[in-house]
């Protein structure tokens, strides 16, 4: 569906993206993840045909973006970050205008506008001026204009940035419900968002892909280790810490910072020491107040991958 090969984009002497390649099949949701300035927006702008790549090719449904821009643009719905809308227009008139520009059959324009207004829950604001809308409604209007021609591909640049938590959840659910048989590319620097909505993830840093994966597998980038945290009833002695350190499979043990009754234990993923650990803690006359397994979140993977990159550089 989307085929990106060796994409490079230079802004003057600054290389914004550096050799990005990926392919995306019909119906997949891809998350582009990366810190600010990683090249997410640039990648999206190239795929949508707003700016040309310095080198490399983008093919959408078999059409090359530089050779057949119109055919490609017909298939794409694009929501830029902080969607730029015509502030002086009325919501439904704006959507009608976009529909006309996007080759929606003139007989279907009215029904398409109705449909996206329904879909994006814009009913209450459809007669209001775009400039007066709240951030959440602006975002939905932006989404509505992207959806108006029922595109096969949706490209959403930070669709939830600047929204309040309730609106974030609403937009996220909306995107999920839209996915269906559409191919979606979504960028974000918010990890839970990608974790919740995307099937596969590309992590970008400084214009390069630092990781590509199905998001469930990403955690394996942390070498598959497990971490635990344990809070006990009294001060933990050094002797006890050293005692645990000698367990098979334990990599590191130490007091949690600014607490003398809590420790962390990092272990190899292949070895489950939990029952042994708890048993020996009780044997040493400690009471366990709290024991938890620290889930390796996408955040950790992300931090690890992006800071590694910095260290290597």
């Amino acid at each position, binding site marked *: 569906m989307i085929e990106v090969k060796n994409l490079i984009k230079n802004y003057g002497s600054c290389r914004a993206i550096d050799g990005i390649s990926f392919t995306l099949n019909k119906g997949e949701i891809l998350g582009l993840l990366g810190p600010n300035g990683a090249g997410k927006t640039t990648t999206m702008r190239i795929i949508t045909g707003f*700016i040309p790549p310095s080198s490399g090719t983008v093919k959408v449904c078999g059409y090359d973006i530089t050779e057949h821009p119109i055919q490609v643009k017909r298939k794409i719905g694009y929501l830029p970050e902080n*969607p*730029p809308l015509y502030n002086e227009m009325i919501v439904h008139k704006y959507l009608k205008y976009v529909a006309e520009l996007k080759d929606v059959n003139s007989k279907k324009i009215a029904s398409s506008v109705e449909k996206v207004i329904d879909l994006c829950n814009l009913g209450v604001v459809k007669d209001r001026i775009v400039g007066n809308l709240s951030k959440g409604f602006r975002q939905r209007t932006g989404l509505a204009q992207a959806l108006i021609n029922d595109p096969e591909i949706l490209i959403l640049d930070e669709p939830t940035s600047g929204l309040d938590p309730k609106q974030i959840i609403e937009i996220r659910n909306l995107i999920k419900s839209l996915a269906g048989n559409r191919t979606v590319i979504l960028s974000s620097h918010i990890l839970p968002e990608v974790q919740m909505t995307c099937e596969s993830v590309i992590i970008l840093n400084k214009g390069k892909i630092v990781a590509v994966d199905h998001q469930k597998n990403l955690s394996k980038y942390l070498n598959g280790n497990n971490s635990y945290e344990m809070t006990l009833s009294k001060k933990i002695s050094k002797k006890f810490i050293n005692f645990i350190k000698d367990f098979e499979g334990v990599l590191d043990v130490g007091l949690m910072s600014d607490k003398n009754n809590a420790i962390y234990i990092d272990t190899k993923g292949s070895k489950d020491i939990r029952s042994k650990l708890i048993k020996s803690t009780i044997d040493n006359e400690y009471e366990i107040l709290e024991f938890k397994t620290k889930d390796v979140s996408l955040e950790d993977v992300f931090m690890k991958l992006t800071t590694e990159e910095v260290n290597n550089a």
Partner: protein
Amino acid sequence: MKKSCVIARKDFKTYFISPIGYLFLSSFLLIIGFMFYQRLIYFVRQSLIGSQMGQPLNITLNDAVIKPLYGTINLLFLFLVPMITMRLIAEEKKQRTIELLLTYPITSTQLITGKFLSAMFLIALTLACTLTYPLILYIGGNPDMGQIFTMYIGLVLLSACYVSVGVFWSSLTENQIIAAVLTFVSLLFLWIIDWAAQNVGQFMSSVLYYLSIMRHFESFGEGTISLKDTVYYISFCTFALYLSYLGIEARNWKN
């Protein structure tokens, strides 16, 4: 063409959402109305004096009223057209709405044509409002309607050139003031370029006369439609719009 019309219609309406369209129309009509009245009074007084003295009138209605009036329209367009063209593309760039516009299935040519037409619609509306003056003259006098007709043709062509220059500058910047100033300056320069003609050689002076945007209006003012001048205006306009097209496409050249 259909999409150009969609863009033109939307931008034309935008003139009347903001005060710009009303301001343009009202300030234009105020000055033209004043001008028309003064010229008319002058002509009436002249003909009164003439009839009292028993001398034949040595000035026609067209020379006394129509020609100065359309000269003023011309001058006013020079000042006011930058006001209506400055926002056309510059505003899209400033608000970044151009990012969405250029990811829609439309070509740069359609975009430029649409922008150009939207300003031309407003010009057409303005010129239509001035039709009342010849009408008044027609009711009360005996003006040369043919000459008036060719002047309108000339004005449409001339203002198309003004607008195309405005679209061009607007496509290069995201600052409306810069677009307006540059439009005004380049139009004024094209207006007075033949002043230099007296100080240069014969060949250069004929080139400068040819370039002068105002010289080509003269034949329309005389009541003729000259092919040479029509070709000049149309090619001028096409060239300026082509430059605007390049202005939009320029984003594809970087690096």
